[in-house]
Every structure is written in structure tokens, then in C-alpha cells.
């Protein structure tokens, strides 16, 4: 795979539009998803929406609970939701574009913050259930309100996020505070009116889907029929109707009768974007199964089985661990599946099961470090991957706050860094390069000095524009391509 070797090489043309020229990426804004934002949004309803970023400079208050655990754009890209280990969901809204503020294109500000999940205790098993948000999925917008699903290890919740900027005034039977008036004092009748008020964003839990998962939920996926969704844990996948919370259908169950025989777990699952009967799930053995719900109620027999034969020259004790799939995503078109394993991203054609059509090396220089990565448990990190709006570019994370993009057409790739220290706002991001052996050039970083505690696990790509969101521990970076 051709790396950008020439020092003058700019980031690859990563354009979602046909014929787009060379594009570079700039940092638009970084947002700190922390307690501070939460407090602000509670205290100052309106002002929060125009948070001055400099106000958030000090990130020394970051705690474990502030670590971002999922990022997701809604279907229009107007909203961006993040979930964190503290069970909070923070929704950002895109700044309205105006002619005199062209430079603010792609800026996002806090729209709503709410506590989605609380820590719980399972008395039967005597175990604590973390509040950490594992995944967020938006429902397609049907009316003025927004709906999203959020899940922790065990419970999925449906949230409604809606705006209110008017309130009724002038009731006949009750006063302004809502107290009933004494009918004897009512001498005249009036017509109640709606008066404008400060905009308020409310988040209300509409459904709670609980008690259906014994193991940890790793994925949720909204079906294209918009009536159902699925939730997958380590061993089972359940199908839910949005209106029914007290029962779900079990559509996949790989739990062996005897747990001693357990050698494989489900790592991710997703519905086909167009065909509501089709879904895929990936496993810890590096395989992907495509199931058709029309075939049988319990999809324990797959329709398609995607697996690449093992390369004997790369065989080691870690082969299985590094081939375990950490994320699976259908392309927007529904034709391809993308999978992420520890060292690579692969693109599979739904019509070819025996090998992927494309394989991209994310950080192959780690192949010689696998034992150490096994020792410090990094080898079990679950990196996610995303498509751009036109399925022509894919993006995934790495260590040292690096993230990678691969252009499927030009076969060029780039490594960028999400960092406040190394990138000024509005300045073009410099491609980074990791030095593998030989002499280290200026501007290169050696494998030995990578920081393995800084990892980019979660990223999101705007559905139609070149705007990306990158979560780096408790920071959320928003980059966009530079418009000339």
C-alpha cells in the first residue's frame, strides 16, 4: 500500500463529491465533554448553546466518567451525540451558517445534555451494572422531535429530544403558576394565547428496554423499517419493536449448552441499510455471518459466511486475537461491509464470501509488538470504523491520538493527529508518519515513542459532508475539509 512518503505530500483527496480536488483537513472546534459542560447547560440554558471554547480550555478536571465512549451523527448531520463512561449523553448542534460568518461552517455547540443511564446493582447476581454508554443510534427524524437509542451493558433506552420555545398563557381556570382559581372570582372569560419564551431543549425517556441481556450489549442497530431494532450481546442478538418493551425476539443465540465449549463470541452486529430482513454479525474468530430473517425465526444458520483464509506466513499465537473483529459497518449503499480487526480494516463485497476485496493496514508496525500489547492488554482494544457519505473513504483510529483515512479509489491513505497541542484551529492538519526501522526523519515519530494510552476508538463522519468527529479520551475534535 503506497504510503505518503514525499514530505511535500498533503493529505489525500478525501472528497465525498465527485471530482473534488485535493483536500486538506482543518480543526474546526474541539469540545470538552465533561462535567463542566453539563453544569453549564443546566445553569444557563441559552448561553450554553454559544459556549466560548476558550472557556473550556482547562481540561484538568477530566475524570474517568468523562471519557467518551461513543460518537454518532444523526441522519441529517445537524446533530452530533456523544455518550460517556459516566452515563451522560451530550448532543451538539451545528452552528447555523450565515453569510457573514462563513468561517463558522461546521462548528458544533452544546444543544442538550442529559443523564441517560445511572449505575445500577443487580441483586440476583450481586453485581454492579456500569452506567457507561456503549452505543448511541439515532432514529430517522419523523417530526420536529429527535429520537435516539442509547445503551449500556444491559439496558437500551429510547430518548425523545424536543425543543420548546412557546408557552400557553391566560387560562381561565388556573393562574399563571398552574393553581386552580376559585370559580367565584372568575368574572370574565378570555382566550389563552401562546407566548414566546426562551428556547428549552428537553430530553425525556420514552421507552426502557431492559432485562433481555445476560451478557454485555456491544451493538444496537435500527432497522430500515423504522419499527424495529436489534441489540447484540456477547452471545445473543435480540429483535425489538419500538412500541413493546416487555418482550423481544431472540434471533441469534450462539451460547453453547456447556459454557466450557465456548470458543467464540459475537463482537458487533448491524442491520442492512435498505433490506429490513438482512443483518450481519461479526465474531471473535474474525468471521462475519449474514442472516436473513425470512429464512427462519431463529437465525442460527447463516445465509452467508465471510471468512478470509489465514496467511500461514503471519501465523503466531496472536493470530486469532488480532483477527477478532471489533466493528462491522454496512456501506450506505448496502453493497459492502467494512470490518475492523486489530491491525487492519477490510472491505467485503456482499457477493464474495471467501476474501475481502480490499484490505488496509492501519498500523502494521505494531505486528512486531504484539507480545507487549498482549501483556498490557492493548491488543483487546476495540477500534471502530466509519464510511464517509459516499462510501469512497473509510476512517478508523489508532494509538497516540492518531487516526487514519483510506481513499478507496486512489488507494492513498493519511495519518492525522487529534491534538490541541499540535494543531491550531483553522490550520491545515499535518499528516503524521510513524517511522519503522532505519533512520528516523524529521517530523516522524518512532514506534517506540507512541503513547498507547492515547487511543482513538470512536469516530463519526457527517452523512453528506466532509466533517468528521473524533473522540480522544474526554475531548471531541471536529475537523472539516478546507474550502478554498
Amino acid at each position: 500500500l503506497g504510503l505518503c512518503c514525499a514530505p511535500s505530500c498533503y493529505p489525500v483527496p478525501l472528497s465525498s463529491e465527485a471530482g473534488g480536488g485535493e483536500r486538506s483537513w482543518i480543526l474546526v472546534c474541539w469540545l470538552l465533554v465533561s462535567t463542566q459542560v453539563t453544569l453549564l447547560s443546566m445553569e444557563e440554558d441559552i448561553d450554553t448553546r454559544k459556549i466560548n471554547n476558550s472557556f473550556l480550555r482547562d481540561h484538568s478536571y477530566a475524570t474517568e466518567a468523562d471519557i467518551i465512549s461513543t460518537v454518532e451523527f444523526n441522519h441529517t448531520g445537524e446533530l452530533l451525540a456523544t455518550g460517556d463512561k459516566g452515563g451522560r449523553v451530550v448532543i451538539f448542534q451545528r452552528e447555523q451558517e450565515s453569510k457573514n460568518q462563513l468561517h463558522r461552517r461546521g462548528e458544533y455547540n452544546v444543544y442538550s445534555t442529559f443523564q441517560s443511564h445511572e449505575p445500577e446493582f443487580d441483586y440476583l447476581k450481586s453485581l454492579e451494572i456500569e452506567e457507561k454508554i456503549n452505543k448511541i443510534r439515532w432514529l430517522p427524524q419523523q417530526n420536529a422531535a429527535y429520537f435516539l437509542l442509547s445503551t449500556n451493558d444491559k439496558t437500551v433506552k429510547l430518548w425523545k429530544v424536543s425543543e420548546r420555545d412557546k408557552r400557553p398563557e391566560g387560562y381561565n381556570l388556573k393562574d399563571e403558576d398552574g393553581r386552580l382559581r376559585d370559580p367565584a372570582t372568575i368574572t370574565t372569560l378570555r382566550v389563552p394565547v401562546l407566548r414566546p419564551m426562551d428556547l428549552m431543549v428537553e430530553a425525556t425517556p420514552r421507552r426502557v428496554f431492559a432485562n433481555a441481556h445476560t451478557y454485555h450489549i456491544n451493538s444496537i442497530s435500527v432497522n430500515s423499517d423504522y419499527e424495529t431494532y436489534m441489540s447484540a450481546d456477547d452471545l445473543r442478538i435480540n429483535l425489538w419493536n419500538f412500541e413493546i418493551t416487555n418482550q423481544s425476539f431472540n434471533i441469534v443465540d450462539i451460547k453453547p449448552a456447556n459454557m466450557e465449549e465456548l470458543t467464540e463470541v459475537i463482537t458487533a452486529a448491524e442491520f442492512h441499510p435498505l433490506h429490513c430482513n438482512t443483518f450481519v454479525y461479526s465474531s471473535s474468530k474474525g468471521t462475519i455471518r449474514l442472516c436473513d430473517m425470512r429464512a427462519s425465526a431463529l437465525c442460527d444458520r447463516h445465509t452467508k459466511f465471510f471468512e478470509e483464509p489465514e496467511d500461514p506466513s503471519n501465523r503466531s499465537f496472536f493470530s486469532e486475537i488480532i483477527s477478532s473483529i471489533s466493528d462491522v459497518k454496512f456501506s450506505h449503499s448496502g453493497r459492502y461491509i467494512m470490518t475492523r480487526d486489530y491491525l487492519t480494516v477490510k472491505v467485503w463485497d456482499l457477493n464474495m464470501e471467501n476474501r475481502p476485496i480490499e484490505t488496509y493496514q492501519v498500523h502494521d508496525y505494531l505486528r512486531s509488538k504484539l507480545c507487549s500489547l498482549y501483556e498490557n492488554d492493548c491488543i483487546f482494544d476495540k477500534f471502530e470504523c466509519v464510511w464517509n457519505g459516499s462510501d469512497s473513504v473509510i476512517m478508523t483510529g489508532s494509538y497516540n491520538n492518531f487516526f487514519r483515512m483510506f481513499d478507496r479509489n486512489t488507494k492513498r491513505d493519511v495519518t492525522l493527529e487529534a491534538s490541541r497541542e499540535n494543531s491550531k484551529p483553522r490550520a491545515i492538519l499535518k499528516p503524521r508518519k510513524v517511522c519503522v526501522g532505519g533512520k528516523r526523519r524529521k517530523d516522524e515519530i518512532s514506534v517506540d515513542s507512541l503513547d498507547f494510552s492515547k487511543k482513538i476508538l470512536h469516530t463519526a463522519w457527517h452523512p453528506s459532508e466532509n466533517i468528521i468527529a473524533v473522540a480522544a479520551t474526554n475531548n471531541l475534535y471536529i475537523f472539516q475539509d478546507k474550502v478554498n
Partner: protein
Amino acid sequence: MWEEDSSQKHLLDTMFARGIKRKCFDGEEDIESTLAGFKAIPSYNLQRQSLLDMSLIKLQLCHMLVEPNLCRSVLIANTVRQIQEEMTQDGTWQVINAQNTGQASLDRLVSSDILCRSTKEQSDGKLIPSYSSFSKDFEDIQSQDIISDLSTVTSVQASRNPQGNVWEMENPPENRGNFQKSLDQIFETLENKNPNSVEDLFSDVDNSYYDLDTVLTGMMSNTKMGHCDVLESFSSQTTTNSNSNCKSDINELDHIVEILVES
């Protein structure tokens, strides 16, 4: 981060990442470390044994969590199976059984009761390291003239183990059925059969376990990882808990000793 790592770790990387039984280094490695590697290369079997030990300790830690990360546990268990299979095929398994070190370490690692055992010995005034077979591995390395920073570790281990290996004496040569039994124990715990025992296990961990494990897995420089958090919580637990905690489990201990003697 990597710079602080010992050369042993480097060797492990080189051994396992580049396919099996491969002893040549390609151009990617810098020359100095390659030379050091050639000079100090221990046997493949020893490295594999270290990996096995490391995996078993990881499983042991999963074992202690009420609800471990299932994916991680399964992947580690599969790695152990794979090593076992390979060792069985090339006959190393039998050799180790005859030498009586591997079997002992396997049994000890998968049985959580080792922790209690060593605490008891300590309270009786004896100092017995938990992982004597591992320190024996280190002595082997030393005898093969390994570079200095490894041997410092070894000498620390050796000095802590003056009276020899109690575990080896207690474990006669055995068949390999025990290994499967031990694995089965681990898988059972994946099902959370007795979450109550977890606190007992934690309270009975002693400092020598912590130290050795830190040395063993070389995690001193990698303090930010989740795995380490578990270890750190061990040490903090330990400092607050006295040895008397173990007395409450004396019945359990007797039971364990019975099992060990039987095996």
C-alpha cells in the same frame, strides 16, 4: 513507553510476532537490539512457557471479576488451548510434566487458592514466593548467560526463594488431564457461579503476589492499562487487610490442600 521495557520483552515480541520458531531477525529491528537478541536468545520453549504463564495469570484475573469481559476471556483461553496443543504435539508437554515445573505452575495459576496458601505460609514465618516455577525459569535464563538487567530480576527472585520449591515437592509427576480440569474451572467461572468468592480472593492476595506479577508481566511501565488497575486494586486491598482475613477461610484452605495432595 517501549523504551523502558526490558530486553526480555523485546525478545518475546520478536519470537511470537514473526511466526513460529523463527530465530532470524529482519531489517526492521535496529542493529543493537538484534545483536542483543542473538546474544541472549533463550529457548523457544521457554518463551512459549512465559506466554503460557502470562495467559494463565490473565485468566486468573478474569476469574476474579464477577462479570469479566467475555470476549477477552475467550480469546485468552483460546490462546492457552493453542499453546497446549502445540506443546502436546512437539512433546514438550510430557517433558515439562517429567520435570514437574510446568504442571505445577499450571495448577497453581488456575487455582486461585495459591494466593491464600502463600499468605498462610507467610503468617507462619516462612517466606515462599508464589511463582517459584517462574523464578526457576528465570534461573534457567540466567544459566544461559542472559544480559544483565534480566539477571538482576533473577537474583531478586532467587534470594527470595532460599529453601527451594515447596510446590514442586507437593506435586508429583502427573498426567495432563489436570490441565483440562483447570481450564474447565476457568470456564465455569465465566458463568459467574460463585461471585461471593471474589471478595475473599481479593482480600487474600499478598504483596509478594503483586510484586512477582508485576515483574512477570513487565507492567511497571504501563500503569494506565485496565489490567494494571486490577493489580493496583490488589495492592491497596492488601495493605488494608491483615493476614487474619485468611483464617476465616481456613476450611477452604484445607480443602485446597486436599485437592493439591490428591493431584
